[in-house]
């Protein structure tokens, strides 16, 4: 009889591993982690009958007998989870929706990372015609989407890149859920877009703004297949940031983690009085457009039923409602003051003085003027909410200063406060007391930083 020394090595590694680190809420004991290798844990918080039959946005899992492609014991591997159309999930073109999971045996803790990728609400935007900023994955999600590396910058976010060479985030050791984006609605819509090329071919396309149902189906699957998280982070950048924010309440409620966190990176839903003056509410026209195109009234009725502070006359009140409804959660928003991407989506096509301005630099400056108004109002609001911090550095020479948590957490410093972006992330995920609030006043130092090879490469790859 021989003892296989390799088995002993592996098992001992699992048993002894947590001795060296501080385990957290949601981490398995070394003993449990060892058994998880042989008996991968499944659901312990499955969808209830009430959740599955709810009148609004029920949690619908795959039908019995459907092969979702998931193998429970495949740890440390990106797996594609197929969702059957009967769950209500589908991409804008009607193709089946899917998401991706990379699980570990050592913890229940889970990060939902919502992919970014623009937005659209009409024919030009939803087809990419005329060079208009558009939405990602209009042709659906290939099965090998993550394996083939299509999501580029999202895949190297320190939140989900376990091998990140220089930025650490505790979520790198968690179960990773990558929620791909294919509905053009910042994961918030529930409407069939019927868009016609009015000035051209006359072509009509069907564009399913189906984001809410996609997230609900993914949550249903998670509840029926994975353990309840001890800690849950919902995050993403741009459209993904907005999606993590708008879906926070129902997802957090249904996943029922012990500790809950939100980091909305560069996907703000600004405080905007729909009946107020446009000059003081620059996002008003955008909000009116998307409420109509994405069927948001129905979705927000659903939220308003449970979040009493949320008032649809000002979509930004969702920020206040989440903070006050979940006083023990730690919430954060991060975004650059020179973000030229989300700001462009927000104003460029809604103000004639911008869209008619031929000089790109003047157009950019007009856009950023409005962005500054919205950003200041937002920062002022977050300053009043202790468990919801706002972090607004000035500029980063990457991706039009859009998205602070892609690639790394560097160059998100606020020099006059001696703060780095990592400090803010830590404040949300590990801090006590009020979450950091900081808005950079220095408008010079960020633009005077030296050449950064990593950013240059990423910029080149993105075509900037």
């Amino acid at each position, binding site marked *: 009889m021989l003892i296989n020394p390799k088995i002993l090595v592996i098992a001992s590694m699992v048993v002894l591993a947590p001795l060296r680190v501080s385990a957290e809420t949601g981490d398995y004991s070394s003993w449990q982690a060892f058994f998880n290798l042989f*008996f991968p844990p499944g659901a312990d918080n499955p969808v209830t009958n009430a959740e599955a039959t709810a009148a609004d946005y029920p949690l619908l899992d795959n039908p019995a007998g459907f092969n979702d492609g998931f193998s429970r014991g495949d740890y440390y591997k990106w797996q594609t989870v197929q969702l059957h159309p009967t769950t209500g999930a589908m991409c804008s073109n009607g193709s089946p929706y899917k998401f991706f999971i990379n699980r570990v045996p050592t913890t229940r803790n889970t990060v939902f990372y919502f992919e970014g990728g623009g937005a659209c609400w009409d024919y030009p935007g939803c087809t990419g015609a005329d060079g208009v900023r558009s939405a990602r994955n209009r042709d659906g999600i290939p099965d090998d989407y993550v394996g083939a590396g299509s999501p580029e910058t999202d895949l190297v976010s320190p939140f989900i890149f376990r091998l990140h060479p220089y930025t650490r985030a505790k979520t790198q050791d968690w179960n990773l859920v990558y929620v791909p984006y294919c509905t053009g609605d910042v994961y918030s819509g529930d409407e069939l877009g019927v868009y016609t090329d009015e000035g051209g071919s006359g072509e009509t396309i069907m564009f399913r703004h189906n984001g809410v149902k996609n997230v609900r189906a993914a949550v249903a699957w998670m509840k029926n297949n994975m353990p309840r998280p001890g800690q849950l982070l919902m995050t993403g950048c741009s459209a993904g940031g907005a999606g993590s924010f708008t879906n926070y309440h129902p997802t957090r409620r249904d996943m029922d983690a012990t500790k809950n966190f939100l980091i909305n990176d560069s996907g703000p839903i600004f405080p905007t009085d729909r009946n107020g003056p446009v000059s003081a509410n620059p996002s008003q026209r955008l909000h009116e457009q998307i409420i109509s195109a994405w069927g948001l009234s129905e979705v927000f009725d659903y939220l308003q039923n449970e979040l009493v502070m949320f008032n649809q006359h000002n979509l930004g009140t969702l920020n206040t409602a989440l903070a006050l409804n979940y006083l023990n959660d730690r919430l954060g928003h991060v975004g650059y003051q020179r973000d030229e991407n989300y700001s462009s989506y927000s104003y460029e096509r809604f103000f004639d003085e911008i869209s008619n301005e031929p000089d790109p630099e003047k157009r950019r400056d007009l856009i950023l003027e409005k962005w500054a108004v919205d950003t200041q109002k937002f920062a002022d609001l977050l300053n009043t909410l202790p468990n919801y911090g706002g972090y607004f550095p000035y500029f980063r020479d990457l991706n039009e200063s859009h998205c602070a948590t892609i690639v790394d957490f560097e160059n998100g410093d606020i020099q006059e406060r001696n703060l780095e972006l990592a400090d803010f992330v830590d404040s949300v995920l590990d801090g006590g007391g009020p979450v950091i609030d900081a808005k950079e006043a220095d408008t010079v130092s960020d633009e005077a930083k030296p050449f950064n090879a990593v950013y240059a490469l990423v910029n080149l790859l993105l075509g900037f």
Partner: protein
Amino acid sequence: MSGKSISILVALGAVLLIGSTRIAWSVLFSPGSEDLHTAPQEASSAFADIEHAYVSDDSPNPPGSRPDGSTIGHVDSDITASGWSAEDIEAYMSRRTLFRDKLRAFVSGDDDLSTKERKNKAASLIDEVRRQEGEGEIVPPQSVFLQAAILRAAYADDETALRARVTALKEEYRSRPRNPPPPDPVFEEFKRREKLIVDDAMARTEFPGGLSRKEFLQEELNALQSELYPPPEG
């Protein structure tokens, strides 16, 4: 009972013993844990590599597998539920531990290497990154990112060379062909019939049951989807 089964049982027993000791120690000395929290706060450097090994992987495919997920060679599914053999896991963990530690030390400049040594080290690390990419352990954007980080650390004092290498890297990856997804006959049929429905709806001036054009489209398309994507039988 086979020799391998006995081996597993003995290994399990040994680990049970270690685990029991560990649990007893945690119960006696742990500074108060909540539901799922069991480990003590202090760290032991002796186990640093073990922890790194266990949590460092980001592979889209396990060792011994092709990028498409199919398996190469022997896999002993009796060993773990993942289907990885003990040999696979050990080799994988050891390699990843060593690599991540080396990579982070190099990128942080936490060494005393000369300029020449740094460039040689960078070449060695990039070879390893490319090997991992070739085996499907990391995906292309992660590979490019790691290589760029290594180059930045190696050529920090030579911006011209750095720019040239970064540009060459970009060109190399941009020139790679991307395979389109395989055709999906069900979805192709869906789109073919969707177009017929849309053409019909756009040509109509009246709709049954007092429906609006959008409501009519929604109903027709939902029916089409149900027809082409029925739930599995049984």
